[in-house]
């Protein structure tokens, strides 16, 4: 069985996108100081995080599977993460 790319995997899931607000916010200065970018990028199973050329961390919050890995490995001051508003985000059909 050939595994689809992570993007294609996520495309098979059902998401209800909250277009009004992101549930993930990064303090870029602190993130740079604590050098957390690579760990966030590597650990997130949904590949929500990536790095821009200038080192800024980019957040694709719409892809988030809401596991909480990032918020466990990052300091709360660096990464503010809460669940999306009620009814939004990933909606597993199998689980």
């Amino acid at each position, binding site marked *: *069985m050939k*595994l*689809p790319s*992570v993007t294609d*995997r*996520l495309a*098979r*899931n059902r998401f*209800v996108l909250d277009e009004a607000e992101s549930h993930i916010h990064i303090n870029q200065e602190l993130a740079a100081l604590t050098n957390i970018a*690579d*760990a966030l*990028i*590597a*650990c*997130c*199973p*949904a*590949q929500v995080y990536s790095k821009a050329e200038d080192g800024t961390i980019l957040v694709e919050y719409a892809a988030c*599977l*809401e*596991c*909480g*890995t990032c*918020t*466990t*490995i990052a300091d*709360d001051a660096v990464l503010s993460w*809460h*669940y*999306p*508003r*009620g*009814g939004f*985000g*990933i*909606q*597993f*059909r*199998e*689980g």
Partner: protein
Amino acid sequence: MTWKTEEPDFEVIVIGAGVAGSVAAYQLAKQGRSVLLIERGEAPGSKNLSGGILYCNEMEKVFPDFLNQAPIERRITRNYVSFLNQDSSFAIDYQDTRLAHPVNAVTVLRAKLDAWLADQCTDTGVMVMPGVRVDAVLTETTDDGTQVVGVQAGEDKLTAHVVIAADGANSFISRAVGLRPKPKQNQMAVGVKGVISLPRRTIEDRFSLSGDQGAAFAVVGDCTQGVGGGGFCYTNLDSVSIGVVLRLDDLVAKKKAATRVFDHFLSHPLMAAYLEGGELREYGCHLVAEGGLDMVGDIHMGGLVVVGDAAGLTLNTGLTVRGMDLAVGSAIAAAKAVGTAIERQDVGAQALSVYRDLLFASTTGKDMERFARMPEFLERERLYSKYGDLLARIMHHIFNHDGTPREPAVKVAANAFSRSKVKIGQLLSDGLAGVRAL
């Protein structure tokens, strides 16, 4: 005594319609309490993932006909535990039809199971409110300290005598109210899981099962590329749930990408053969508490009790991984304690400490205590890297007849030892620690 004479909106508010939350709500409604069950997902179950198999014992105490009425997938009759290396594997393959008579453990898919549980709640009079995120609990300061008196969801405030936090492994609710600390990295693991569609018949043929029998695989070693944790694979009716569980401190330290480790396990020849021709139906991830008893800590305060994953109730014994049965066990204890507290009109911290007493008098609490040393044992590095290799070396000597005269078994083992990276002292130490932890 802590009791408010004015009538609250509900006697009990439960946050989270997972296994723990729904069972607690159901039990309290059966006692005649007014219960509100709030779920942030579109529907109960839509935020939840089954990380393994459900041992049914506790669930059958709540729903005697659970096996016939609930949407279960397969009844586990085969437990397969394997040390996986790059080119070899060594496994214990335990198959027993007695495990199905009576049924001991089943596979479930949470979107279906949790929806069924919530239906049982509705039928018993629980008000189930999906699509609502609880932002915080409401508190008041009393002579006995902080007392939880309700919940806040957006602009809405709802009051209750007792709030039950069943909000899952992250448990932001008990963190925000200062009851429980943020978990440490070595206390949490991320489970990454795929649900792969396969025809029923194919699953039964490949896993040597008949009818609705099921198999559960637990794998350590190369499946996680040396990261503390393991691989798992469970058969559903017409799909296979497969993935890896990775301890966060080790995942960060080893600088491995979670997605790569997942792909690596599914592509390993041992697993790939089972998945051939399958189609990925869903991809998900979820945190798992790995801290054992140490992590349970404070699970009650005035007006609040914490149940299930939110209370750190997961148990990895090396051979079996349990969570859902512990969620039920804690929900039974919580419902009893909360019901009694309301009846006696005292919902202060002291009155609700009965929850803790009941929990640790039950199988759930006793098992958490029994395996208290397990997390520390499972942090031993060699389990994930060297033992699989050592076992395969010994087996290779035994089964590979290369034409030379055979050596005595003791010498075979000694040779394999000297060539592997494990020292005798380490083996003894790990063996002793393992036995103690069990």
